[in-house]
């Protein structure tokens, strides 16, 4: 007689599952499966009531395996595992069956077939649960120091927050000086204060902080290891140096698009980007009286669909500064949608209108045209509200271009084993609720390297990234998942296939009794299974996904 006692909890998820699948029927079916001693269904298994029911039923029915059939392990696995653990059950004796994403959502129009599939998936889950084994997690020490890559406003703000909490920070900047993009800016919206008044004091505070070690003209050449124990190689003009850190924050920023070839940029002498205009404003403007700005140059077009978020504000700011510098000057801002979101930006826009700056909306199917050969003399634009084309005199044409990702984001992403989004910016773990975390533990992201931001947003994100980084450092240890690969040394032939394939550099060949054998650093292994699938000798098995567990699932499906 088997001593396996399985309990099953089937979730309605309100109408998400219950609206399509016949949950009570599926629950009754689950009771008939081998070794299942208890089954119930809940309106929301993840509610406090559902969780306490899991705990209660584990002790009441002496359950030693728990299966929840509900949504996705991505959001809910930890929760249900913790419920098992709280009731004294090893959390790896829990099995998740996803009948929402894989049944009710994708087969919304076919409720009967969705219900049938739910039965199949639960039967497979039970087949696996019968074979589950308890696993123990190892505790890894966390080195209480952080590597911050990028010495702009985001990187420096993160470094200061970490250092003020007593953690050692290595701040690495590839340029000669700290400061980043802000060094090239004139004034900052919405207060119109000098950029240097923000950035210079910040640089001073960073340089003078005992806990921050600044490495300028330095690049990160290599990163090995894992959360708590990253081995980092720095390269300062050919001179290498190794450091050990517990966490890493990426704050490498972005760059401004140069619109070569657009509207004659590069050919005609009186066309600037907003960034070039900042420099002119800083040094002092000439006698240009008619200034035309065109927004969304290189943004919100099929080749680059995203909106640069801050470009509208940059244009309005520079228009205001021109006007304040010379109230007789005429400034037109040709825009598509004006992205002055929130309280402060909208107020700033209204003030700009009051100052006499003219805003004209254009659409992508009727873009502005420039008039003039060597220089832009005028800009033609179709004025939607007036319903006619206007010709604006133009002494200076300013093109508003978005921030774009650095080209070497690719290299950094490969080195750190973190992802980039389709736009080329770094990709956070979850767009809504984990905006400053990467899917890789111990590495965090902030500022324009993630997405274009203004200064306050960059600082907020920097502090947020710091908040995430200090959590493991304050605790002093982490416990990664115990779902890892393990090597059967009797079967291993030492061929090294797994070493080459492992995306986390977690495997190396070690000599043992005169034989080469694959050795897995458990703390570094993410349990992806690549090695296990590739091993020609069948020597590697995946905890929690052992061959017999998978085969039992397949068998349960085809019977």
């Amino acid at each position, binding site marked *: 007689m088997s001593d396996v006692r399985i309990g099953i909890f089937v979730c309605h998820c*309100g*109408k*998400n599952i219950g*609206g399509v699948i016949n949950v009570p029927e599926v629950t009754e079916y689950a009771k008939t499966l081998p070794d299942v001693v208890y089954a119930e269904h809940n*309106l*929301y298994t*993840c*509610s*406090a*009531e559902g969780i*306490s029911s899991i705990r209660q039923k584990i002790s009441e029915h002496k359950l030693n395996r728990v299966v929840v059939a509900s*949504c996705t392990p991505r*959001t809910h696995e930890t*929760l249900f595992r913790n419920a098992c653990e709280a009731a004294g059950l090893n959390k790896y004796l829990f099995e998740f069956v996803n009948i929402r994403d894989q049944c009710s959502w994708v087969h919304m129009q076919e409720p009967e077939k969705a219900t049938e599939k739910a039965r199949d998936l639960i039967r497979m889950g039970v087949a696996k649960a019968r074979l589950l084994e308890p696993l123990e997690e190892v505790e890894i020490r966390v080195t209480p120091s952080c590597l911050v890559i990028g010495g702009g406003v985001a990187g420096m703000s993160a470094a200061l*927050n970490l250092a*003020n*909490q007593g953690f050692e920070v290595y701040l690495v900047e590839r340029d000669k000086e700290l400061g980043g993009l802000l060094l090239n800016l004139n004034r*900052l919206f*919405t*207060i119109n*204060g000098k950029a240097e008044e923000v950035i210079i004091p*910040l640089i001073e505070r960073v340089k003078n902080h005992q806990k921050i070690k600044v490495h300028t003209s330095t690049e990160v050449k290599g990163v090995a290891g894992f959360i708590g124990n990253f081995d980092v190689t720095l390269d300062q003009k050919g001179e290498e140096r190794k450091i050990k850190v517990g966490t890493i924050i990426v704050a490498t920023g972005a760059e401004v698009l140069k619109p070569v070839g657009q509207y004659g940029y590069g050919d005609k002498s009186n066309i600037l980007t907003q960034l070039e205009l900042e420099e002119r404003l800083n040094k002092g403007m000439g006698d240009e009286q008619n200034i035309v700005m065109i927004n969304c140059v290189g943004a*919100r077009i099929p080749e680059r*669909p*995203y*909106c640069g*978020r801050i470009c509208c504000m940059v244009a309005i700011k520079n228009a205001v500064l021109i006007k304040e510098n010379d109230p007789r000057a005429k400034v037109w801002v040709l825009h598509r*949608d*004006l*992205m002055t*979101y*929130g*309280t*402060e930006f*909208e*107020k700033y826009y*209204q003030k700009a209108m009051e100052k006499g700056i003219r805003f004209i909306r254009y659409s992508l199917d009727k873009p502005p045209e420039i008039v003039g050969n060597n220089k832009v003399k005028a800009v033609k634009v179709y004025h*939607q509200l007036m*319903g006619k084309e206007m010709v604006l005199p133009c002494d200076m044409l300013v093109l508003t271009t978005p921030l774009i990702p650095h080209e070497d984001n690719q290299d950094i992403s490969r080195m750190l084993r973190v992802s980039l*989004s389709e736009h080329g910016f770094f990709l956070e773990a*979850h*767009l*809504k*609720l984990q*905006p*400053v975390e990467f899917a890789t533990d111990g590495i965090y992201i902030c500022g324009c390297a993630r*997405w274009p931001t203004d200064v*306050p*947003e960059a*600082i*907020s*994100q*920097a*502090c*947020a990234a*710091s*908040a*995430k980084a200090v*959590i493991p450092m*304050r605790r002093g240890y982490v416990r990664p998942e115990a779902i890892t690969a393990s090597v059967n040394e009797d079967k291993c032939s030492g061929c090294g296939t797994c070493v080459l394939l492992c995306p986390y550099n977690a495997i190396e060949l070690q000599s043992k009794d005169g034989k080469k054998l694959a050795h897995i650093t458990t703390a570094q292994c993410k349990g992806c299974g690549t090695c296990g699938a590739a091993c020609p000798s069948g020597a590697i098995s995946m905890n929690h996904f052992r061959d017999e567990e998978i085969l039992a699932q397949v068998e349960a499906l085809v019977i």
Partner: protein
Amino acid sequence: MNNSVLIIGGGIAGIQAAIDSANMGFQVCLVEKSPSIGGRMAQLDKTFPTNDCAMCILAPKMIEAGQHANIKLLTYSEVLSVEGEVGKFKAKIKKKARSVDEEKCTGCGICIEKCPWKADSEFDAGMGKRKAIYVPFPQAIPNVPVIDREHCAYFLKGKCRACERFCEAGAINYDQEDEIIEVEAKAIILATGFDLYDPTPLREYGYGRIQNVITAMEYERLSSASGPTAGELKRPSDGKIVSDIAFIQCVGSRDVRSNRYCSSVCCMYGTKEAILAYEHRPGTKSTIFYIDLRAVGKRFQEYIQRAEDEYNITYIRGRPGNIELNRRNQNPTIWYEDTTTGETKSLEVELAILCQALIPPRDIQKTASILSIELDEYGFVKTPDGLSHPVDTTRAGILACGCVHSPKDIPDSVVQASAAAARAAEILSGGT
């Protein structure tokens, strides 16, 4: 009670700040005025631009906050006073009487089932009913009901006691009194979020007069599977399931008569709601009236593009001037000028949704005076140096995050929440 960080407001911002502070090892007291944490995000059906179900991604965070050893939850509670200064604040908190013993209650829900008295559900934005003894929504944390004494027959007329009779745990306690709890904190994080603009004063849109003109939050509850219609888009006048709808942007935003500021999220939530309408009933036609289509976040432009290409959504630039009622079929007719062509036109739809502004919490003046912090001209929390210290307030040791600062979306609120936790940690570490 001695807590290192006092967090006021249990929406997504307050929850995130609490979890981060607690995971850093600090003691946290999280105060929420309603019976459950969760806030506005809990009311939403899905979230842009991923269409993640709001409750599905929020519930694990609520449970984490509810079960964390370092977090003390005080729900159905209000801060009465704050004394002291950074490093040694002392707050008095009123824990209102639930009339249900939190220790004894098992959350079985029999009291709610048996209660014969009903009131409008705040959680469902008044679109549905709840009992006089209720939990606001199924995933509530804590899962302990509260008796609404203003609608309970026992409190009004001295008889009923149905809940008490059926409660096996003996948890009902009509004599429970408000409790005053003193909390010490080294830093305070304010995260009381926002309220929604009531469009009744904008008479031209007919809200309150034309039944099939509703607000965006009312629509969220209609659209939500946990809402009063179980996710069926039944319009108020006759329960007809709608397939031709319109959204009006900037209702109470960017308007000299109400609020001049932009509410940041309406273009996106309007688009999301239109996409959801199509998903509920493929083929549904939506028209969105806007001034500027503000889609500045990651994957937002792509979301708008998909809305147009795949979800039968049309964007018209113009702020409608009037909504009339077609008495024959109860349809609202929207009069507008398409500003890209200059033409004045009308559009009859089955349901019109007003994308209402986000406004400061209605009790923000009181909160500000209790905390001795300054507000900006609109009533949002003022930041003395918004450029370099975006989550600070005018009083040292008191930080603010999320929409109480200014309207913003969920990722930006979550970022600020973590940033506020980081700033609090800096203060608690003796920094500045």
